[in-house]
């Protein structure tokens, strides 16, 4: 792998046995140190990068997590937290000299309260299991990342995960009310709770999406919502992506925030249709699935309005789901889009930029040009409502140089997202994948302001180092003020 990670501490690596023994004294039945057994932990959802961890520890209680972190802190050992290992940005990529702290065994639902409309769960509970715990009472947990059957709430908190419904219902951060977490030195704290606003600084908001760099979450209080009465979808096909994009803009302009609004380009549509036979039209340049939810009367009216808007923008296909089976069939292709595209080439690389929606056509045109330059195919699926684009770059890792080419192509796409006013990542996180692209979006001063947050939580920089920041500066260095008493910069400028 070409990725530069923090220098490996060879003394720590040499001490593997002692470290495993130390951890075993805290978690007797939850330490893995044999090479073969470490292998399943060597990568997460970003499989291009692999690194077996020094040792894996799987605590079962907050107290164990606290003691493990305190012990590692005292010994100066790096720690990488991990949920289910489904991160698409390498957030849980282990370190050769780091302890991998797996939270999967902390998987109990602790409390459900329908007056406060919250579920309190341990971090290893899967996303879908939260809904499973409350659906009998007509509730669900809204954020629905595509890996929801496997991914954990703890990982969702770390990555601020999204999903197809987040335009209407928000990302993880909008649905988490409180956490119990353990800081790098083992201190246990609570942020937020069952109320809605912070008593002081909103540190909870910083923790969600911090990619395991600020602490280890050991309990999460999430908001649960009543399940919508009905959900229906409309399948629309357009002769150009521009027409599809304009249709999306007008739907929102009419005051409609759909529960989901997904676009696929021609290659993605063809791949999905070949894979699952969803009944998609093959003669369109852009396919749009729009889902609305709520009372049946509302769904009826909104679908009629959306169909009208689509017709005005020249939709050549327009089908409203007539029953639940048909709605699910519309989605089947979209939900299988990644594996479907995966059949077109030995490997694919999934990107995750966000752009202002109005720039979509231009971005797709430039991407097609890049595709020709690099000689690699690309298919696009797009959370059209919020501008989150997932280009899938096709390559063959067995062909020398193709992985590097795919990565360079991906980096060009993300730079383009930033250039048109968007961002590097909409929902997958920075991790190691986009780490070195951070300077395209943030200058040094911006990054220093972010990294000082890291220093406030973890001054020794031992939690998940090598992720998010292209370069971790020592905290003492960042703390310096470049203003000294009596010596203001730019002395020639006016003063007040």
């Amino acid at each position, binding site marked *: 792998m070409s990725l530069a990670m923090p220098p490996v501490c060879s003394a720590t690596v040499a001490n593997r046995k002692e470290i495993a023994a130390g951890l075993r004294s805290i978690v007797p039945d939850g330490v893995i140190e044999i090479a073969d057994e470490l292998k399943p932990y060597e990568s997460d959802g970003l499989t291009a990068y692999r690194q077996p961890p020094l040792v894996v520890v799987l605590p079962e209680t907050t107290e164990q997590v606290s003691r493990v972190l305190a012990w590692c802190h005292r010994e100066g050992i790096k720690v990488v937290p991990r949920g289910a290992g489904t991160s698409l940005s390498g957030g849980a990529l282990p370190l050769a000299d780091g302890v991998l702290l797996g939270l999967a065994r902390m998987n109990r639902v602790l409390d459900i309260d329908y*007056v*406060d409309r919250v579920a309190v769960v341990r971090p290893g509970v899967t996303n879908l299991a939260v809904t499973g715990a409350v659906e009998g009472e*007509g509730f669900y947990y809204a954020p629905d990342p595509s890996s929801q059957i496997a991914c954990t709430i703890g990982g969702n908190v770390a990555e601020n995960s*999204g999903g197809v419904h987040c335009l209407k219902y*928000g*990302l993880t*951060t909008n649905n988490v009310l409180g956490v119990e977490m353990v*800081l790098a030195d083992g201190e246990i*704290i609570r942020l937020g*709770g069952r*109320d*809605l606003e*912070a*008593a*002081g*600084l*909103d*540190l909870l*908001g*910083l923790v*969600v*999406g*911090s990619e395991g760099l600020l602490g280890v979450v050991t309990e999460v209080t999430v908001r649960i919502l*009543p*399940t*919508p*009465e009905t959900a229906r979808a409309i399948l629309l096909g357009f002769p150009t992506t521009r027409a599809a994009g304009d249709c999306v803009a*007008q739907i*929102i302009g009419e*005051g409609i925030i759909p529960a989901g609004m997904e676009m696929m380009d021609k290659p993605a549509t063809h791949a999905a249709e070949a894979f699952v036979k969803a009944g998609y039209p093959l003669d369109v340049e852009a396919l749009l699935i729009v889902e609305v939810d*709520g*009372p049946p*009367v*509302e769904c009826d009216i*909104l679908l009629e309005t959306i169909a009208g808007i689509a017709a005005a923008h020249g939709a050549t296909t327009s089908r409203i789901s007539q029953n639940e089976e048909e709605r699910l069939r519309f989605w089947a292709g979209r939900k299988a889009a990644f594996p479907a595209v995966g059949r077109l080439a030995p490997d694919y690389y999934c990107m995750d930029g*966000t*752009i*202002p*929606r*109005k720039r979509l056509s231009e971005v797709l045109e430039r991407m097609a040009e890049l595709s020709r330059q690099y000689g690699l195919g690309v298919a696009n699926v797009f959370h059209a409502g919020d*501008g*989150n684009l997932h280009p899938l770059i096709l390559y063959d890792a067995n062909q020398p140089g193709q992985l590097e080419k795919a990565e360079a192509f991906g980096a060009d796409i993300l730079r383009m997202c930033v250039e048109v006013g968007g961002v590097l990542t*909409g929902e997958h996180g*920075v991790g190691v994948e986009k780490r070195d692209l951070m300077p395209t979006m943030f200058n040094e*001063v*911006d*990054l220093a*302001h972010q990294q000082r*947050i890291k*220093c*406030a939580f973890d001054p020794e920089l031992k939690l998940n180092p090598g992720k998010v920041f292209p370069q971790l500066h020592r905290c003492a260095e960042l703390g310096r*003020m*470049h*203003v*000294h008493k009596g010596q203001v*910069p730019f002395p020639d*400028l*006016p*003063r*007040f």
Partner: protein
Amino acid sequence: MLSPETTVRPADEDELRHLVAEAAASGVPLEPRGGGSKQDIGKPDRSAAIVDLSAFAGVIDYEPSELVLTVRPATRLGDVEALLDGHQQMLAFEPWDHGPLFGRQAGTATIGGIVAAAVAGPRRVSAGGVRDHLLGFSAISGRGETFKAGGKVVKNVTGYDLPKVISGSWGQLAIMTELTLKVVPKPRDTRTIAVTGLDPDKAVAAMARAMGSRMAPSAAAHLPETGGTGPVTLLRLEGFPQSVDVRAGQLVELLDDGNSVEQLDHALAGSLWAGVREARELAGSDVLWRVHLAPSRAPAFARALDAEGASWCLDWAGAQVWVGAAAPLDVRALASEHEGHAMLLRAPPAILEQRPIRQPEAPAVAALSARVKQAFDPAGILSPSRFG
């Protein structure tokens, strides 16, 4: 030179940056001020120089179909609302002007002040607060450096979510120079259902039942007394007219447990909601507190307040309690007993001097907050003693 109790009005970002740098060097605290509608909140700091941000006003970019608005902080809330209204859009968290609560003229509240104080109204319970809608910002930190964070698109997880911690930071971390907010379509119709005669336990239960139902109310509040007519519980429905019609019918049925349930006319409903939003019923109280707690704890808290002779009303389905009390009552201690936290919003100067304005945090959290504050403002010059 900077000196206490003077007002300085930087004309542009460069001037503001140098002003902050000078303050950091000289140790003179700064109190950033937009329209001044909330200047009476907190402890008066006579050592601070006021930074008048009025030069930082105006809309930078507004793309209705992208649901994104970028403005300068001193833009008046009224101007922002009028602009959005022209496109049938709004700020979902229902911000409001604190001026009148402090006997000040209405209309001076700015969007920067709204974000800095995390001001939200009744729709907070369903649509989220300022923290859920601030997408990005540019600011000058206490280090005298310009930095930016977040983005200008509605979905972004790149880097730490600094917009969250800036929301509600009361200008204590940085002075914003530009902010980007997510906007949403304005509901085409609105309807209020009122249930009369419920005690706090039944009112919170009714609000929970409504909020947990498919009728999806956008707001839920409870007023124990409204002009001598007894308690009234309010549920607000919003959306497309046909949907509101159907849901209103269903909600009346759901709440009709032998209670008196009615749909209110728009004018009455509008004034009741404005009253809830701005704590108007309690505006005459000696001391005004704002308490946040779990809705399930609200009934017992309300009964405790009754026993002490304090007046109160519930918003956010019980998660926010406005409390009007006589000066000696320690509402914070009562709130703590019910696992809530209380902010002292308005009180005579002698009381403000005596008590912390915000609820003290657990020691480890307070220490962490102090380190975060120090990361942005190592010299401690941005409103350091406002909440002391």
